[in-house]
């Protein structure tokens, strides 16, 4: 009897572990989105698909779909192309200031899109310092913004895997006569492939659901599925057309996730992990250092513009914008001071991070198991994809869905403040899973079996085998979740209560009002937000340094 129970617990435990995040997903994603789709296709108690053909037949629909997909693909490719050299430099080389740079890379991730949009335009517009490029209001600007926002995903996801990669396989190939480029192509790249696919999938989803930045930078010339759904839902209340586009979005996301899952399954391998493989830069690293430097410059340029403008007042230098931040009632447009907003942001971010990391860890542990039976593997793979879906679905659909579905006990949450961290966690969750799962998958299952054979219970065995390698990605994921939560604007602006706004919401309020002071405060608040992120990410890096020596 006892022995039976011992055998049952791991499978049962894994199943239970899956149940918690699944319930979360069902309540806060499937229910609201399903509700919105029902309103579209089943409006007055009867199914109605009359508008489907008409929506699909609009030339605008085809144009919007094409633009969305091609731009997301181009954005993903460019982000990977520029992100990989940076990941190498920041995770395989050792030099002073590396930790700061790692934190800097994450900064764009948290800047509110509306501020970044305005900054990019200030740089690229005909009067701006980069106006001569003629990129203002063109698709190039949108592409650059995609790269700007998503570099962090590539650098951190791929970097944390690269850091632990055993360099001896590369050494062996080099000794066999493979040039550095060839070593990278034939040895390093295949080993990194799972994390590259993971990061690429995320970036693609982020790009294809980007909204504010497309509008700001492209003017209204370019529409994406996301902006179209927004328009149809919030302005036209054409719920059927919105539902048609949402379903297309959903299908496209599912197909893409399935392709990515196949690609990952093909490339995933048990890796030997080592530590301390980072080395001092050499002359041969020159070209990569230059690329990385240019990329960092590209990240810093809009940010420095932001800092510069926040310190300017007419013709001179001033700290007034920052002084105003601490003053309650400095702007009549705001109900709370920026300092209170910072406090709200931090609290919400802590809640969202805890939620996302706990749930994400559950999901990652479940999806990193390799069931013996094919059916089991399919279930695991589907589960993996399910938690990515929220990234591919319009925030408007989810937000409106909250309003129409979470309206009665026991889930009357529409007016509750808990929806904000929940929505943020929903966005951060896939990133947490994507950061942790590849590492867990690459742990040799025999390690766990060895621990179990020594008498460790399932939990103990898992923590013995996987705990040591889990540290890095877990911290990276925590930082990520925190950063996302700090910067999240779309869902937050929809759900947050005006008496408890977060910093991005306040920045948006300031920037939408006339007055030099308001703009100045918005810029200063953005700088504060950026500094906050760099500090938090810097702490995460430090924390890790302390723990690395432990094993």
């Amino acid at each position: 009897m006892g022995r039976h129970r011992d055998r049952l617990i791991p499978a049962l435990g894994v199943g239970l572990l899956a149940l918690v995040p699944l319930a979360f997903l069902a309540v806060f994603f499937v229910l609201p989105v399903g509700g919105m789709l029902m309103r579209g296709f089943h409006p007055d108690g009867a199914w109605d698909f009359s508008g489907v053909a008409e929506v699909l037949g609009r030339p605008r629909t085809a144009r919007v779909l094409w633009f969305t997909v091609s731009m997301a693909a181009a954005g993903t490719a460019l982000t990977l192309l520029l992100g990989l050299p940076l990941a190498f430099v920041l995770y395989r080389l050792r030099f002073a200031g590396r930790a700061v740079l790692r934190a800097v890379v994450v900064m764009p991730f948290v800047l509110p899109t509306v501020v970044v949009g305005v900054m990019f335009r200030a740089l690229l517009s005909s009067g701006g310092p980069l106006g001569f490029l003629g990129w203002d209001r063109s698709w190039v600007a949108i592409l650059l913004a995609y790269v700007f926002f998503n570099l962090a995903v590539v650098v951190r996801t791929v970097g944390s895997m690269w850091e632990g990669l055993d360099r001896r396989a590369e050494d062996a190939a080099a000794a066999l006569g493979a040039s550095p480029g060839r070593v990278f192509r034939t040895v390093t790249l295949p080993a990194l492939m799972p994390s590259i696919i993971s990061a690429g999938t995320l970036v693609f989803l982020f790009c294809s659901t980007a909204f504010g930045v497309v509008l700001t930078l492209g003017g209204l010339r370019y529409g994406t599925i996301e902006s179209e759904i927004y328009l149809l839902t919030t302005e036209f209340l054409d719920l059927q057309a919105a539902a048609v586009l949402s379903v297309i979005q959903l299908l496209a996301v599912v197909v893409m996730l399935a392709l990515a899952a196949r690609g990952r399954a093909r490339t995933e391998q048990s890796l030997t992990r080592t530590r301390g493989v980072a080395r001092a830069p050499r002359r041969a690293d020159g070209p990569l250092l230059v690329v990385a430097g240019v990329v960092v410059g590209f990240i810093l340029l809009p940010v420095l513009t932001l800092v510069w403008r926040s310190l300017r007042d007419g013709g001179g230098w001033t700290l007034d914008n920052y002084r105003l931040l601490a003053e309650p009632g400095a702007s009549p447009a705001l109900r709370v001071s920026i300092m209170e907003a910072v406090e709200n942001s931090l609290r919400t971010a802590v809640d969202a991070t805890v939620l996302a990391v706990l749930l994400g860890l559950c999901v990652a542990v479940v999806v990193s198991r390799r069931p013996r039976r094919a059916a089991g593997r399919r279930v695991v793979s589907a589960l993996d994809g399910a938690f990515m879906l929220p990234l591919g679905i319009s925030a408007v659909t989810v937000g409106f869905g909250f309003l129409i579905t979470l309206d009665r006990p026991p889930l009357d949450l529409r007016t509750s403040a808990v929806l904000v961290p929940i929505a943020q966690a929903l966005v951060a969750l896939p990133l947490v899973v994507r950061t942790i799962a590849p590492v867990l998958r690459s742990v040799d299952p025999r390690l766990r079996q060895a621990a179990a054979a020594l008498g460790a219970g399932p939990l103990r065995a898992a923590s013995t085998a996987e705990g040591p390698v889990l540290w890095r990605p877990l911290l990276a994921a925590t930082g990520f979740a925190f950063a996302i939560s700090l910067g999240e604007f779309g869902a937050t602006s929809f759900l947050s209560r005006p008496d408890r706004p977060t910093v991005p919401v306040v920045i948006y309020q300031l920037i939408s009002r006339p007055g030099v002071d308001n703009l100045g405060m918005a810029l200063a608040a953005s700088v504060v937000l950026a500094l906050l992120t760099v500090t938090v990410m810097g702490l995460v890096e430090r924390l890790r340094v302390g723990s690395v020596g432990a094993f």
Partner: protein
Amino acid sequence: MLELNDVGVRFGSTVAVADVTLTVPEGEVLAVLGPSGCGKSTLLRAIAGLEELATGTVALDGTDLAGVPTHRRGFALMFQDGQLFRHLDVAGNIRYPLSLRRPNPDRRPNPDRARRAAPSAVTERVEELLETVGLPGYGSREVSTLSGGEQQRVALARALAAEPRLLLLDEPLSALDRSLRERLAGDLRGILTQTGTTALLVTHDHDEAFTLADRMALMFDGRIVQHGPTQEVWTRPATRQVAEFIGFSTFLTGDPARRVLAATEARTPRQAGTGGSSADAGRSTVDGDGSTLALRRSALRVDPAGSLEGTVVSAGAISDAVRVELDLDGVGVVEALADQHATLRAGDRCRVRAHAVGMARLGP
């Protein structure tokens, strides 16, 4: 011929390798033997061009390799866990170096190289190499389905496919179980000899070094402390540290040493060509100068006809003998061997015969 002259490697302020001067003649195998962390792997990586030299030169056939990147040195590297490319199958791994253009001006003429583009020739060569390492027909196997020993064989085939001017082996057999290790060591030695490959091996396992290498260098704390033909190092360790590391377990001085030497039979057929018995050397000098007599456990055997006598402290079977700890009268506690069928219990009295093979004299 590989020549290392005054090679040093530093990591920041830490000196990992210092003052290493070694040569490996063409076609020979040199083993660098030392405990883990002694810097031997760093030395290997420096030779491969993977670490920068702080001092000294690495030269091959008279050409200084400074500034020549790893992939142009025409070497091959093999690690204890193979480091096979997991996204390629067995044939794919062996084909890997064949698909690379290796700039190697003084490569031996090789008809296969000329036909590099012909796929059939490559396939043939892969199969030939698989046969050499004893894995015929394994070409389409996935790497992950291979046992540890098979992976090492594939790694060897991959290295040989490169026709390296120098093969660098980093603990090539350490991850394998004992019987496999012994068999593979023999095979490896045979293959290296047969292909005339110049090789440098680093290992902490003295048996591995003894089986594979023509020459041996002992490294402690980043420095080479002894260097010479394997047999010579094996029988004449320069220091007690070296002796301990290559398997000497008992060290005697003064009266106990003289007592053992007196009982020793000078029977040294294996050492005929190496300039006399180490026991002779011991006998002549151990007296009076404070030098030490080092004994492997095989130097003392339990034998009713022996001239030494002692009390058994403990005994335990090993693969082909019984290892006995004895309190030898007038000598002290020593390690010895007994025949496999011997039944010895603690407290038993027995006689012991001393053999010159397995003894060495260490300077003061």
